């Protein structure tokens, strides 16, 4: 009896998919999330929890390295799928699932992962050294590697736990077990100089802005210093498309723009709620977003969106959890070149997501307005886009100040409540520093 094969096939009926979105590939990501929801395939959080690694868009440069590292970190059974365009998603997922249920393919894959010294089935007890740069938490795949490759076998690979940080360079001569560097100590707000951890967050991280890497210095889980890095912009945001077309002189109706804006707010809310750990409502927001983009009738859409917006905006627990986090005054935001909800909210995380809810209600109110998009209609979801990457460039530039002193959980909420869309940044800003 082929028990393994049967289990493989049974498991492949519902694979967990880790989606990595390349800059400029929001459309592909949306198609992928829609597909996963329809199929009932859960989204994986980490390479360790994933069966299929789906690359949405074309990963290049540092992102390609991060994808490769994530792939190396995935235990068998595993399969890889690449979809450059939205219409390729379904076929890519189906092919990946077929490979996932194929015993011969998976046994080869398992042998492959087992042969990599530090990744085998047999767990070497204690401290096995290895020279792969991919054995870390999700946050840090690949990125550190690219800096360290020149160091040879035991270069530092960043992001290890155990209170160890790493300082990138300078441990070439030290013979550390496992190639792990010792941590440095640093000042902290509580006056205790404890070990620091240098950890890149992203790009392979769930519910994280595509193409963003945040290099953080942690003491405990308090961020002492954060430096954003951008893996490349897109050629204009998907969410700004109706306004861009209107500016080019095309005929765009208010209804079309409102639908896009509503979907954008729902997308942002979905990401924010997922980070806040309110999975059920996050899933509802994403489902509504997919329906809005698929052209669902405006009546039920309006009703459901309003209900969701009110439920989120009125939740006292959520407001209690997010109050006082990441306060951004209107003046500060304006100087940084930020517009849109983040400025109009002028406050903490709570104010920002409530602003989204209000804007969402306003957008769904004009879903049937067939008039031409004018200045009185709904604006672009993140505020007017500029050639220099505004407003998302400004949002990213503010991260270091807002995140310093925040705890990891708070920092994730702050980032999700700003929700920068790196597709707004001009293409080819590879590895540009946010400030």
């Amino acid at each position, binding site marked *: 009896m082929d028990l393994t094969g049967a289990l493989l096939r049974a498991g492949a009926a519902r694979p967990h998919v880790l989606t990595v979105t390349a800059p400029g590939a929001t459309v592909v990501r949306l198609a992928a999330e829609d597909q996963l929801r329809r199929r009932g395939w859960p989204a994986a959080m980490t390479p360790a929890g994933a069966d299929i690694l789906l690359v949405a868009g074309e990963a290049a440069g540092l992102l390609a390295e991060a994808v490769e590292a994530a792939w190396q970190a995935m235990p068998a059974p595993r399969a890889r799928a690449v979809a450059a365009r939205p219409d390729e998603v379904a076929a890519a997922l189906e092919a990946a699932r077929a490979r996932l249920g194929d015993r011969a393919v998976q046994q080869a894959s398992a042998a492959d992962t087992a042969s990599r010294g530090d990744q085998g089935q047999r767990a070497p007890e204690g*401290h096995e050294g290895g020279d792969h740069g991919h054995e870390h938490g999700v946050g840090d795949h690949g990125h550190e590697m690219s800096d360290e490759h020149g160091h040879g076998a035991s270069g530092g690979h960043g992001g290890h736990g*155990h*209170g*160890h940080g790493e300082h990138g360079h300078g441990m070439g001569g030290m013979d*550390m*077990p*496992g190639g*792990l560097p*010792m941590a440095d100590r640093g000042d902290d*707000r*509580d*006056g*205790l100089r*404890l070990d620091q951890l240098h950890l890149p967050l992203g790009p392979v991280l769930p519910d994280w802005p595509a193409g963003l890497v945040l290099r953080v210095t942690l003491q405990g889980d*308090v961020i002492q210093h954060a430096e954003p890095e951008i893996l490349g912009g897109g050629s204009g945001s998907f969410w700004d498309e109706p306004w861009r077309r209107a500016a080019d002189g095309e005929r765009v109706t208010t209804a079309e723009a409102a639908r896009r804006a509503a979907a954008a707010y729902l997308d942002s809310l979905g990401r924010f709620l997922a980070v806040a750990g309110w999975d059920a409502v996050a899933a509802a927001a994403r489902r509504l977003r997919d329906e809005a983009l698929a052209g669902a009738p405006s009546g039920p859409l309006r009703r459901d969106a309003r209900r969701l917006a009110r439920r989120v905006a009125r939740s006292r627990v959520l407001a*209690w959890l997010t*109050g*006082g*986090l990441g306060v951004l005054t209107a003046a500060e935001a304006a100087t940084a070149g930020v517009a849109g909800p983040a400025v109009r909210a002028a406050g903490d995380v709570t104010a920002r997501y409530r602003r989204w809810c209000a804007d969402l209600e306003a957008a769904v109110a004009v879903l049937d307005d067939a008039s031409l998009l004018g200045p009185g209609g709904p604006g672009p979801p993140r505020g007017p886009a500029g050639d220099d990457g505004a407003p998302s460039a400004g949002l990213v530039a503010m991260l270091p100040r807002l995140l310093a*002193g925040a*705890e990891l959980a*708070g920092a994730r909420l702050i980032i999700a409540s700003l929700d920068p869309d790196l597709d707004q940044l001009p293409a080819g800003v590879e590895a540009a520093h946010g400030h």
Partner: protein
Amino acid sequence: MTTAVFWVLALLAAASGFMVFRFNSMARVTISLMVSFLASGGLLVLLGLGYLGVVVILMMVMEMVIMAVFMIAYMMNPAGLMPMAMFHNKRGSLAIAVVTFALLAAGIFLTPWPHRSGAPPRDATRQLGTALMGSQMLTMITLGFTLLATMVGAVVLATQRGRYDRFGDDLKRRPPSDPVRGGVGR
């Protein structure tokens, strides 16, 4: 049956206690001490002290996990990835420990222990409770105050910020300035 359980627990308690000073990793050190306490708790249950045995298990799991946090925060080499010895006067300590053990062991076997007086109570927990709330009330009060003093003292020693840091020099700042806001908004 009980004898077998005794030997297993006794050897476990002694061996894991010994390993506390053999492991390099602070995590393993702490967990090892925890296992030693769990075995002692089991031995107390074996002796008919159900309540105290289980309380020792309950307390020591919590205490050791909290201890691990501090161990790892303050040690230079918490994961023990780079083996390093941090001893002073290892041989002297060993000699003192061995002599102490020898003296204690000699005492244990040479002392003419008295015979058991009285029978174990039907409910040891009730015996303890009645004693602490009755004849031993003074002990209980002392222990209570000791714990209270410990709580206050430990917080005062460990913390850096006081109310002037939070509420300002005139104690009028509202809301207080805290690095991370709490859930009640005091």
